[in-house]
């Protein structure tokens, strides 16, 4: 069990590309932190620096109280689960799970017992003598998990461990991993580009964009109070609506529709207004007209895609609400409105 702290960690690849800008954050003992962001934003790079698979260009990395910048991955007391699992193809599940222990000189009897334990925990007991090629994707995933838990490390590192599974299995494994981590109380850093995974698994989410941290916060904070338009549009499916608006004499106006809400700040001039699709209601008496172009049936919900004041806009309604194409009127929940700086995209 350990706290992990990054102080000014930066990564510049040998070709001069800066993949991660100077970052500072601390992961608390036992916390499940998810690194999320679009492809190429530096998630894996950051994780691999923590693992020791990638040199740290600058900054200090501590696991527990120990500075580990120059410590070999094997001695960092970490375990990592890879996207492609990286199981040793020629070894049985038993040997795969026990390999790390064997290399550390653990007595054979102890290895056997620990492997059995891990296998029981992950429902792998029946597969211990199979080779990875004889397992399903989900089982392989579990073996990779087993290899991580068997050593009882201070820190778990996951690099998109579920992205090779189908949607249903992914949901199931998501819950299993989270439960396992809870039970073991091991600190975990989990990389994904799937915002649903991030929302459901994380104690705290770190949103990365182009090598920079956009926001750190609990899933609810990230969802309800995104720090920037980037976070607002990246987290949540469908994403938050972002439309151009003005602040004029303390009031927010959208292209001629006045008095939508009082502006929370003293800002004046153009702003970006954000609102989640579910915070909007169809309302015959509503103050804003909304032109519906496409109606998406999701079962429990309906998604209405269309235009508000000439800008793309989406509304999510419950299945028992009637909806029709064409002209509708809506009201925006005032407490759900968020304003962002048009230039920087940061919240106001």
């Amino acid at each position: 069990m350990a706290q992990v702290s990054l102080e000014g960690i930066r990564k510049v690849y040998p070709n001069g590309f800066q993949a991660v800008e100077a970052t500072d954050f601390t992961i608390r003992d036992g916390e499940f932190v998810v690194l999320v962001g679009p492809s190429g934003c530096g998630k894996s790079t950051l994780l691999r620096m923590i693992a020791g698979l990638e040199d740290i260009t600058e900054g200090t990395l501590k696991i527990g109280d120990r500075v580990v910048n120059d410590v070999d991955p094997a001695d960092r007391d970490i375990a990592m689960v890879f996207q492609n699992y990286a199981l040793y193809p020629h070894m049985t599940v038993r040997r795969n799970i026990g390999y790390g222990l064997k290399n550390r000189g653990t007595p054979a009897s102890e290895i056997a017992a620990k492997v059995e334990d891990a296998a029981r925990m992950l429902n792998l007991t029946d597969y211990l003598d199979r080779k990875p090629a004889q397992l399903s994707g989900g089982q392989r995933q579990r073996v990779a998990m087993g290899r991580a838990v068997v050593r009882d490390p201070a820190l778990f590192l996951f690099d998109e461990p579920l992205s090779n599974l189908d949607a249903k299995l992914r949901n199931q494994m998501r819950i299993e991993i989270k439960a396992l981590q809870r039970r073991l109380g091991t600190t975990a850093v989990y990389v994904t580009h799937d915002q649903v995974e991030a929302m459901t698994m994380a104690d705290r989410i770190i949103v990365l964009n182009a090598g920079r941290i956009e926001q750190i916060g609990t899933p609810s904070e990230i969802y309800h109070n995104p720090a920037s338009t980037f976070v607002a549009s990246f987290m949540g499916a469908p994403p938050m609506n972002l439309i151009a608006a003005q602040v004029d004499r303390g009031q927010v106006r959208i292209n001629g529709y006045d008095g939508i809400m009082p502006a929370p700040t003293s800002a004046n001039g153009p702003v970006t207004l954000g609102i989640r699709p579910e915070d909007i209601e169809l309302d015959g008496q509503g103050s804003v007209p909304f032109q519906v172009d496409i109606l998406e049936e999701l079962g429990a919900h309906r998604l209405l895609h269309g235009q508000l004041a000439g800008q793309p806009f989406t509304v999510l309604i419950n299945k028992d609400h009637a909806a029709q194409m064409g002209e509708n009127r809506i009201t925006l929940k005032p407490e759900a409105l968020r304003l962002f700086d048009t230039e920087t995209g940061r919240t106001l």
Partner: protein
Amino acid sequence: MADTTLETPAVAHRPRKIRWHAIGDHLVLILGSLLMILPPLLALTTASHDAVTIHREGLQLTLGDDLGKNFHAAMFEKGGFTQTVDGTLMLMNSLILGIGFAVGKIVISMMAAYAIVYFRLRFATLAFWVIFTTLLLPLEVRILPSYEAIQKLGLTNTYTGLIVPLIASATGTFFFRQFFMSVPEELAEAARIDGAGPWKFFIDILVPLSRTMIAAIFIIMFVFGWNQYLWPTLITTDESFFTLVRGIKQIVLSYTDGQIPEHGQALALAIVAMIPPVAIVIFFQNWFVKGLTESDK
């Protein structure tokens, strides 16, 4: 790789009809195999006759009575200039050369490829291409300097002198390099986190993963070593280092002594010389099939 082998049976279940092109294919294959098998067969039948018959009438298509005698003489009768070498000794020498060759080449080229692929060497790519260009310098091109080096080292008439100068292998290094590069990088990283150092990773993971490659290269290199003629002729003058390939030549050469050469024995020896390479191919073929069907990587 696995997929193709698994899917072929499906074809066989289609409704039967005469497929002329299949018959054509088989005809070509059968003719081809006959062509290939005829010379060894002729060697076998001819080897069953005595030297005089062979000398007078040439190759024989029927079986004679001297098969056992010729084989026995070829294997156990001391011959050569010093009358100390027999077939078994030559067989041993050939085996030592073939196996030493194959094993040496595999060990050296695997380690070279490992260094090139997995270590951040400054000039890894350059080193690889330098090794690769040695393909342009086969033994025949550098035979004089090689001989001189071995002779100065006092390694003539030793197994070391026979084997070591030939085990550097650009081909082997190239194949292993390509294979290692196809092994997912995460495997090395996982092993690193699992506490396997470079040596352990090599032995515990790379070597077992490469076993089909090793088998393939072993076959090629064994046969290559087995058939070496020029280098052993040059480097060993002591008859106790003679290989089968040289032994055959020796028997036929005795013609110059004014007697009839023991053609029967030479052919018997030739057949003996054919067996190990064939056996090795058959033995390792199993590994090939296994390696191909077990989708491992």
